[in-house]
Each structure stands twice: as structure tokens, then as C-alpha cells.
């Protein structure tokens, strides 16, 4: 049977290389670095007037193609729910012991609010600076992960996280439905565009990014919780 193993490996290599070769051939016909934009041109030039965000990418992510972002947020939600579902059998035993010293424990307590603030800042300013809901939410989650590392007994408030997760998601959906009520189209912006470059500008982008940041933060923290503590619910 040893020969069979080699057959598999060679076949696998052959398939992968063949596909890679076809891909490379195709890519070589796409000139790198040239301006081939079509749809994006309008985004770049019209966006300050239509959306009002200084960060063009944010304008696309949240407004022009906000539907994709809604889907993406939902995918993360699916992952969090799926992880909780699959790892739920055993109740609440901490499986990743960490021994830490007083220095780490104190340091974590001091850092916690700072990290949370950084994360919060990033997602609140998503329409003005690089970043936005997703990186901001990840940073917020990492603050909670820090607590898990430092304190073995630490348990994130799971029900609270679920509540936040659900409410944040609903905020996004409600913003979308407002578009249906006012204009007959999902996710059409009903909020004022404000002054370009200020915090309260760009319509619903700050609202959505805060919602996304909260959702991502609570979801990732929940996923880590489920993996470390095997999903014991604090009900």
C-alpha cells in the first residue's frame, strides 16, 4: 500500500501545479499596476459628495457595498454560533491553564481600559482614518483575551455578550430597514451627511461601524471563551 500513498501525493501535486500554471498564465495577461478601474472611478470622485467619508474604502465597505458587509458580519456571527454549538458538550471547564505572576495580572488590569479605548477609537473613526469596525472590534476582543490570559478564573459575561451581539446586529438590520421605509430600498442612507472630515458625518457610517465593532468584539471574545472554557454558559 505504500505505493498508493505516493500515487496520491503525485496526483495531488500534479493537480495543484496544473491549476497554478493556468492561473499564472491568466494573471500574466493582466498588466500589473495599470489603471483598469471602471466602477471604482465613480467611487473615488463622487464619494465625498454622495457618502461624505474621508476614507474611500470605508465608503465602499459600509455604503456602496454595504450589503456585502452585512453578509460578512453575518458570516462572523455564523462562525461564533457554530463554534458555540459544536463545542458545547462539556460544561465550563477551563482547558487552557495559564500560570501568571502578579506583574502580569496587574499589568493586564491597567492595560484593559487602554486597549478597549484604542479599539473603540478605531471603530468610531472608521470613516476618517484607516481601520473601522473590524480591526476595532478585534482589538476590543483582544482586551478580553488579555484578561483570559492573565486570570485563570476569569469568565467573560457570556449572556451579556450574546445580548450585545444580538442588539448590535439588530442595529445594522434596522438601519437597513429604515432605508426601505423611507426610500423603498434596503440600506439606503437616511442620516445626514454632515461636514466632511468631522466625527459626525458620512450618514450612517459611524452608527454602523460602532455596531460592527461591538458585534465583532463580543463575537470574537465569545469564540475564545467557547474554545478555552468549552462553552459553559453562565446562565
Amino acid at each position, binding site marked *: 500500500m505504500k505505493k498508493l500513498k505516493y500515487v496520491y501525493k503525485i496526483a495531488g501535486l500534479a493537480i495543484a501545479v496544473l491549476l497554478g500554471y493556468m492561473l499564472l498564465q491568466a494573471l500574466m495577461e493582466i498588466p500589473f499596476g495599470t489603471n483598469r478601474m*471602471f466602477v471604482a472611478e465613480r467611487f473615488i470622485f463622487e464619494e465625498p459628495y454622495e457618502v461624505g467619508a474621508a476614507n474611500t474604502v470605508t465608503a465602499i465597505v459600509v455604503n456602496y457595498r454595504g450589503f456585502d458587509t452585512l453578509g460578512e458580519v453575518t458570516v462572523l456571527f455564523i462562525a461564533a454560533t457554530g463554534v458555540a454549538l459544536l463545542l458545547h458538550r462539556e460544561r465550563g471547564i477551563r482547558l487552557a491553564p495559564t500560570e501568571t505572576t502578579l506583574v502580569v495580572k496587574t499589568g493586564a488590569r491597567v492595560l484593559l481600559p487602554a486597549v478597549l479605548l484604542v479599539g473603540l477609537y478605531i471603530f468610531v473613526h472608521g470613516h476618517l482614518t484607516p481601520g473601522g469596525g473590524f480591526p476595532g472590534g478585534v482589538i476590543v476582543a483582544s482586551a478580553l483575551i488579555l484578561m483570559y490570559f492573565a486570570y485563570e478564573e476569569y469568565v467573560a459575561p457570556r449572556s451579556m455578550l450574546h445580548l450585545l451581539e444580538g442588539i448590535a446586529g439588530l442595529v445594522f438590520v434596522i438601519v437597513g430597514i429604515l432605508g426601505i421605509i423611507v426610500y423603498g430600498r434596503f440600506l439606503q442612507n437616511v442620516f445626514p451627511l454632515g461636514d466632511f472630515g468631522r466625527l459626525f458625518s458620512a450618514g450612517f457610517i459611524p452608527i454602523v461601524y460602532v455596531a460592527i465593532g461591538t458585534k465583532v468584539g463580543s463575537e470574537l471574545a465569545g469564540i475564545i471563551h467557547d474554545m478555552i472554557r468549552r462553552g459553559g454558559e453562565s446562565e
Partner: protein
Amino acid sequence: MVTIVPSLIIASLLGGAFVMTAVAPFIRRMTKYVPSIVLLFNVLISLRLLLKSTNEPVVEFIGGWEPPYGINLVAGPMGSFLALIISLIAFLISLSFLKYEPTVEEVKFMILFMLSVLGASGLVLTGDIFNLFVFLELMTISAYALVAYGRGGEGAEAGFKYLLAGSVAANFYLISVILIYASLGSLNMADLVSRMTMLKYGVALASMLFLVIGFATESELFPLHGWAPDVYTGAPPSVAAFVSGVLVSASLYVLARFFYTVFAELNALRSEMFAILMLLGVLTAIFGETVALVQRDYRRMLGYSSIGAAGMILVGLVSEIPYAFIGALLLIVAHGFAKVPLFMMSKHLEENYGTRDMEKVKGAFKANSKLAIPLVAGSLTILGMPPFLGFWGKLLLIYGLALKYPIIALIILLASIVEAAYYLRMLHRLVIQDGELKKQIKIDTVELVIYYAFLALLIILGILPMLLSPYLAGAFIELSNPSFYIKVAMGVMGG
């Protein structure tokens, strides 16, 4: 105040899922009603969209941005029809959640189910190729979790295989999308139609190749079907039915949509690809039906039958023949409806007799006529017997194929005969033969309702298939006539 727009289908499922998440730690009991309520709502919405689709198809520009700048949801005859079937199948499956007080895990199961339906619904309605990727992932990632939730090692193994195959497939599709965007600068299906001729040959070929590999995997076509038999055996029965009836059908739709509409202008490559797809379909049909013949496990048999059916449906879809195409759509419905009771019944076998081996459960349903009837009806539907819907599907498919490809029609006919053989054998074993097992199986009222609801639908549509014909014909026109699709998608027709 609230106009009937396709996004309501998405928003309702999403809102329902979020509400359930927020509320479940506090009032779990009430959550079990949410999926059924939301899905019933979606059935009504998609029905309304379908009824309008032939005269005034509804198109929604998400965010208010007109395509190709914004994403559009196109409720044409094809999209609304599929959305309706998806919602209907999902609704009836969701009734099974009403049986008991849900545990914490079961609430999550329901949420994931709703989100998979969301993915499938969005997939068939979207007019944007990247948005399609997002909905594909939504549909399949939740399915991975649903499958992995199956009993013990089987569930985990099946879930893992499905995840691997599906993720690679999705990545391949994404490569295809990026190749297209990098060359043409747009992501909107309707907009891309006219730009396609600007694609360099190598890029077009690679794009089509990766697309086909990706979605052939998702549609369980030979030889990329490897994940499917395990999923059908290892996943919870309702999930198996859902994958077979909804996910696979949605994936087949994508293949049809791309090659009929998006790539419409690339004539030479397109004809080659249609030929390849037809070949794949035929091979899949032959493979699926033949292997099903030697199966002893009830669910594995149904799984290979599903693969075979997917092959037949694909052949009809890509034949470019109206009769065959409509037959394929009818088979999507018939197959989707029939497989649910058939799969769900394996639960009775497992719970009462502890095995799915058909050799060991002779006469299992003989004393339980309430179960035997839907079992027989479902099987006959798949075989293509009147008065069930499957009859019209098979008839139109084979007749349509015979007009241009008589040999293929003959192959499909032979495959159907093989299908008949093993279904009748299964029925003989489970319903007719005498066995030592003569338990009176306890059945929940809810389950009976589900089985007989599908039975009723199959009979009604079997007797009155003309209820569907204008929409199916409209679907064919929408796909095969790109200028019609473009007009609809860009909002020139209707609202």
C-alpha cells in the same frame, strides 16, 4: 409604507436570527416559533415576487445605488421561483423545531438553519458576482456547522469533509471573480455581459475553469462529489434533506446563470463549456444511480440518488432546450420536496431499529401505513411516476433532450430505470416484505404534518403543473436572453 422588496427576505431572516441570539439566554421557550414565522413570511414574500416577475419584475438597488455601482437584487422569474422553493422547503423543515422545548444548542441550530436559508435565498436573487460569493459562504458555512452537529464521529467527519471541499470551492470561485474584476472593472452581472468580449482568452478560460471547479464541487458533480455521500449519511436528517434540496439546487443555478447570461457574448468558449458541463452531468447521473444500486445503508442510497439527480438536473439546465430546461426546474422542485420526508424518515429507522441497513430492517414500515404512504409517494416522485410532480419533470427533461441529443436522452432514461430499480427494492424491503420487526412506530404529529404537506404539494403540482409554467418559461427566457435580463436588472422594466 413598506414596499415589497426582495431584501425583506434577507432582512427578516437576519433580524429573526439576531433577536433569537439576544433573547435566548433569557426566554428560550419562545424562540422556537421564530424560524417558522419568519420563513412563512418569506414564502409569502417570494410568492408575491414570483407573481409579479413575469410582468413587472421587482429589482432592488441596495443602498440606493444603481448598478453597476451598487448591488442589485433581481426578483425575476428564475430568482423568485428558486427563492419560493427554498423558503417553502425551509419553512416545512422548520416546523420540526416546534416539537420540543429547545436546549441552548438547539436554539443555535435553528439560528444556523435560518442563516443557511438566508445565504441560499440571497444567492439566487443577487445580481452581483462578489455578493454571490458572500451569500455562497453564508449558505455553506452555516451548513458546515449544521452537518458537523450530526451524531458522533459521523457528523464531525462529514462536516470536516464538507468544509474542506466547500472552502476550496469557494476560494476557486473567488479567484474567478477577481480575474473578471481585474480585467473588466465591474462586478455586476448585467453590466459584465457587454464587457465580456474584452476579456483576454487566457483570462476567460481560467475564469470559467475555476468557476466550474468551484460550483461543480458545490453541486456534487462527479468527480468532485466526494463530500456528498458522507454528508448525507452523517448529518442530521433534516440537514441532509436541506443540503440536497436547497444547497445543491442553488449551486446548479449559479452554473446556469453564469453560462447563459454572464458569459453570453463569449460564444466559442461558451459552447465548449456547455458541452463539458453536459458531459459532467451525464457522468454524474450514471455514476450516482449506479452506485446507489449497491448501497445497503438507507441514507447513503438516498445520497447517491441525490447525486444522480443533480447530474440529470444539470444536463437539463445546460442543454439550452426549453423543454429540458423546464423539466430540470420541475425536477429541482420535485426532488427538493420528495427528499425531505425520505431523509427525515431515516430517523425512525435509527431510533426504533438502531440501524439504517436495509437488509436488517425488512418490513419496518409495513405496520405503519401513516409512514409508508409518504415514503412510497416520495419514491414514486423521484422515479417520475404520475400523479406526482416528478413525472412531468422527467417527461419534459427526456423529451426535450430527445429533440436534439437522443443518445443523452436514452442515457438519462436508462439511469432513471436504474433509479426505479433500487427505489422499488427499498420500498419492497421496507413496506411490503414481512419482517420480524413489527413495531408500531410512535410518530409526532408535527412530523406527519410535514410529510403530508410535501405529499400534498407533490400531488397538486403533479396534477396542475400548468400553475408553474408561465414562470418556468419566464425563467428560461430570463436566462437565455441576456438583453431581457439586463433590462430587468437595470430596472428598466417594472420597479
